């Protein structure tokens, strides 16, 4: 029986060692109904101007190599997350590059972050859902976007 305890401790260590920041863990997706949440469109209840995000979504929706898009902006930060149809994932790197260039051209003054990563997509969508529910002041929003941006740049 002692063996099992040790094994359980090892699992726990492995799991907890991987969660880097407690705070981020809390903001994870528990509770958010990510599968049924509305995909297109922008946060209606938001007081903050989501015009650039809406335009980015509208622009990317026209592409046939993008299946879903979700975007959030705040200040001069624009965060765009999208999903690529599975069979087009072979060209994922190329598509990502194209979209990044296109968005940068569309929003010259903005610090644009775009990603096709599923985790970034979930997080962005989650953020948008939260924006609909409660008022966010700009600084909080900025910080949250910054956090997602950092996550999307992690390599290993």
């Amino acid at each position: 029986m002692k063996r099992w305890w040790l094994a359980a401790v090892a699992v726990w260590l492995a799991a907890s060692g991987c969660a880097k920041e407690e705070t981020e863990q809390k903001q994870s997706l528990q509770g958010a109904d990510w599968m049924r949440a509305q995909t297109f469109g922008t946060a209606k209840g938001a007081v903050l101007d989501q015009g650039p995000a809406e335009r980015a979504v509208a622009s990317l929706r026209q592409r046939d190599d993008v299946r879903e898009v979700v975007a959030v902006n705040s200040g001069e930060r624009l965060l765009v997350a999208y999903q690529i149809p599975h069979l087009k994932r072979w060209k994922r790197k190329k598509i990502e590059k194209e979209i990044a260039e296109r968005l940068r051209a569309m929003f010259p003054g903005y610090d644009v972050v775009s990603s096709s990563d599923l985790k970034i997509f979930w997080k962005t969508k989650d953020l948008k859902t939260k924006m609909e529910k409660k008022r966010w002041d700009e600084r909080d929003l900025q910080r949250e976007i910054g956090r997602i941006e950092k996550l999307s740049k992690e390599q290993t």
Partner: protein
Amino acid sequence: MEVRRSVLAMFFWAFVVGGLICVIGQLLMDVFKLTPAHTLTILVVAGAILNGLGLYEPLIDFAGAGATIPITSFGNALVHGAMQEAEKHGIVGVLTGMFEVTSAGISAAIVFGFIGALLFRPKG
């Protein structure tokens, strides 16, 4: 709905691609009568070469764990780490960056190998 579909597609392709890589291994063992050690060595080198040709990363994008779980990804990750570091530090990075990405597999094997030796004995 859409996300669920892409998750399911990922499972499907992970299964298929991972399974096919294993079939290649099986053919190496059965048709060419190679030992498992030879087979795995060939696959690792193949993974490194595929990365060199720029083919392995798209495969990972497409098949997810179907490409990262087979041992071929080990060769891929070694090259990947080396290249990443080489971009930053030039030619010296080739040597220093090699285990940057792969460390998880090896260190997990070492740590769990030792824990295993503490906990278990061979059943036969």
